[in-house]
C-alpha cells in the first residue's frame, strides 16, 4: 500500500506524526519532491487566482502524486475547539482537492479534525486506519508510536534552538512564519539562506513550546481565533528578548497573517521588525535589499549596545 503525502502545507507541521503512523502500519510513503518551479507552475494552473501562494503550491504537490500512489493524504482540519480555528484553507482542503482533480482518478485518504463536533485527532486516525483495512489494535499502537515520535522530535528541535539562542556574539533573527512557508524550498529557503549568508543565526518561530506560546499569545490578544497564528505570536513573546530582530514572512495574500502581522508591528516594541510578503515573482533584488538593510540595522544597533555595555 502506497500513501502519497504532498510535501507542502500541513506536512511540515505533522510530518513526524504522519510518517511514523504509516510506517508503523506497514505502508509505503511516497513523498512529493521539494517544491520546484514546475510544481509551482502546475499549482498556479489548478488554483483559483485569488488563493495564497502556499495553497497554490499545495495543489502542485497533489498533482505530482496522482498515479504514483494508492492514496493521497489530504487532511481536513476545522477547529481544535471553541475559539481555536485554523485558516479556512485547511478546512476546505479535502473538498478543493477532490473537486479540482475529480477527472483524474484521485483517491484521497483523509482525516477530519473538528473538536466542536467531537472529532478528535485520535478518532480521525482510527477512521483512517480502518479505511486502510488495519486492525483496531494495530491502529492504536501505530498512533501512539507516532505521537511519541512527534514528541521526541519536537523536543529535539527545541533543544537545538535553545542552544542557538545562547550564542550571544552573533546576530540572531527570529523568523515568524508558518511551517509550510519557512521550510519550503521555493518560498522560505532562499530567505533563510540569504540571512545565513549575512552571518545571522536563524531562530524559527514555529519551533517553540506550543502550550506556553499559546498562553503568551492570549495575553497579547485574548480574541485571536487562529490556533497556528497564536503559536507564532506567543513565540515572539518567548524569544523576543534573546533575538536582535524579527522577520515576519508570509505568502500573498494570506488572510490570517495580514491581520496578525499588522497587530504585531503595532504591538511588539523594542525590536526592529521586517514584514516580508512573498509572491510568485522571482526577481529577488527587492527581497535582498530588504534583508540586507535590515541586517545592517540590527548589526549597528547591536554594536552600539555592546559599546555602551563596555563603557559602563
Amino acid at each position, binding site marked *: 500500500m502506497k500513501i502519497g503525502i504532498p510535501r507542502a502545507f500541513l506536512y511540515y507541521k505533522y510530518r513526524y506524526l504522519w510518517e511514523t503512523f504509516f510506517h508503523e502500519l506497514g505502508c509505503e510513503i511516497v513523498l512529493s519532491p521539494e517544491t520546484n*518551479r514546475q510544481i509551482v507552475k502546475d499549482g498556479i494552473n489548478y488554483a483559483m487566482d485569488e488563493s495564497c501562494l502556499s495553497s497554490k503550491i499545495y495543489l502542485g504537490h497533489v498533482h505530482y502524486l496522482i498515479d504514483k500512489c494508492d492514496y493521497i493524504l489530504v487532511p481536513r482540519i476545522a477547529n481544535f475547539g471553541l475559539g481555536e480555528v485554523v485558516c479556512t484553507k485547511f478546512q476546505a482542503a479535502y473538498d478543493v482537492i477532490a473537486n479540482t482533480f475529480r477527472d483524474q482518478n484521485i483517491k484521497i485518504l483523509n482525516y477530519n479534525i473538528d473538536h466542536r463536533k467531537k472529532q478528535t485527532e485520535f478518532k480521525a486516525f482510527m477512521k483512517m486506519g480502518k479505511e486502510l483495512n488495519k486492525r483496531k489494535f494495530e491502529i492504536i499502537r501505530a498512533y501512539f508510536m507516532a505521537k511519541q515520535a512527534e514528541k521526541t522530535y519536537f523536543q529535539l528541535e527545541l533543544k537545538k534552538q535553545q542552544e542557538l539562542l545562547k550564542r550571544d556574539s552573533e546576530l540572531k533573527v527570529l523568523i515568524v512564519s508558518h511551517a509550510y512557508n519557512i521550510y519550503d524550498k521555493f518560498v522560505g529557503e532562499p530567505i533563510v539562506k540569504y540571512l545565513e549568508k549575512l552571518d545571522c543565526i536563524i531562530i524559527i518561530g514555529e519551533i517553540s513550546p506550543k502550550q506556553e506560546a499559546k498562553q503568551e499569545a492570549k495575553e497579547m490578544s485574548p480574541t485571536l481565533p487562529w490556533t497556528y497564528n497564536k503559536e507564532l505570536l506567543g513565540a515572539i513573546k518567548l524569544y523576543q528578548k534573546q533575538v536582535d530582530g524579527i522577520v515576519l514572512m508570509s505568502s500573498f495574500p494570506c488572510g490570517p497573517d495580514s491581520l496578525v502581522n499588522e497587530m504585531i*508591528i503595532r504591538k511588539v516594541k523594542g525590536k526592529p521588525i521586517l514584514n516580508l*510578503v512573498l509572491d510568485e515573482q522571482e526577481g529577488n*533584488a527587492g527581497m535582498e535589499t530588504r534583508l540586507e538593510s535590515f541586517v*545592517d540595522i540590527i548589526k549597528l544597533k547591536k554594536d*552600539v549596545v555592546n559599546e555602551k555595555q563596555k563603557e559602563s
Partner: protein
Amino acid sequence: MKKAYLGVDVGSISTKGVIIDKNNKILAEAYLWTEGNPIGAVKRLISELANQFEQKKYKVVGVGTTGSARKLTGTILGANVVKNEITAHAIGTTSLYPEVRTIFEIGGQDSKIIIIEDGIVVDYAMNTLCAAGTGAFLTSQARRLGLEVEEFGPLALQSNNPTNIAARCTVFAESDLVHKMQIGHRREDIVAGLCKAVVTNYLNNVGKGKKIKSPIVFQGGVSKNIGVIKAFSDVTKEEIIVDPNSHLLGALGVAILAKNKKSEKDFDFDINEIEFETRGVECKKCANNCEIICVFKDGYLIDSWGNRCENGAIKIKEQS
C-alpha cells in the same frame, strides 16, 4: 595626487553619481534617466562625471554602488562596496544632517522610512513589493492628466481644496481619479489630492507604528515635487527639510562607504570603450529552470547570478 571616491546609485528610473574627496566634498555630480538600460546609463554617467572632474589633480581609488541595479553596476565598475540603498541613504543624509531623526524617502518604485537616533539607524520600513504611492504612480497619473510630472508641484500649490483620492492601490486610485475628473473636479484640486494621497498612503503604510520625530529630511525623486513636500508638512505639522542635492544622497552615502573601506583600487574612466553585455541562460539541470544572468566584459564572462543552487553556479575563467 589627491584621493577621490566614486559613488553610483542606479535606480529604477534615474541614475545618480558623485565623486567626493576625503572630506566628503562633492567634486563632480551627474543625474540622468536609467531608461531601462542600467549598463548604458552607467556608461553615460561615468563619461559625464569624467568631464567635470580634474583627473590631473585627483585619482579615484574607491567605487561604491547602490540602488536596485547595484549588483550589475558593481560588477561593471569593479566596485569595492556594493550596498543596499537604505543604508547608503542613511549614511549620505547623516553626513549632511547629523541631527536628523527621520528620513522619508519616496523613489520610483520604492518608498521607505528610516528612523535615526544619535546618528544611527535604529528602525526602518519599506513598502512591500507593490509600488503603490511611489514616483511611478505620480508619473502615470500625470500622463493621464496630460501633464508633465514636473508641473505637478506648482499646480498642486494653487489648490485650496484638494480632492480626496483613494490611493491604497494604484489601479483603484486611477479609476477614482477618472470619476472625479468626469464629475468636474478642478485639475489643480485633483493634482493636490494626488500629492496628499501619496503622503497619507505613505504614512499609513510605510510609516505605520513609527514615531516620527523632527528634524525630518525628505528625499528620493518625489522630494522634487513641492506639492508632496507641502502635503507632508501639512500632515506632520513639522518642517520638512529637502536638500538641494536630495537626489544624490544615496550616491554620496555609498561613496563615503567606499572611502571608509580599507581596500583601494584605481578606477579607470575608460569604461565607455569596453563592451559589456548580459545574457540570460536557463539552467536545465533541475526542475527549477533558474534563469541565470551572465555578465560579459569584452566577450569574457566576469560574473553570473540568479541560480538557486550550486548546480547552476557558473565557473568564471580567470582572464589572462
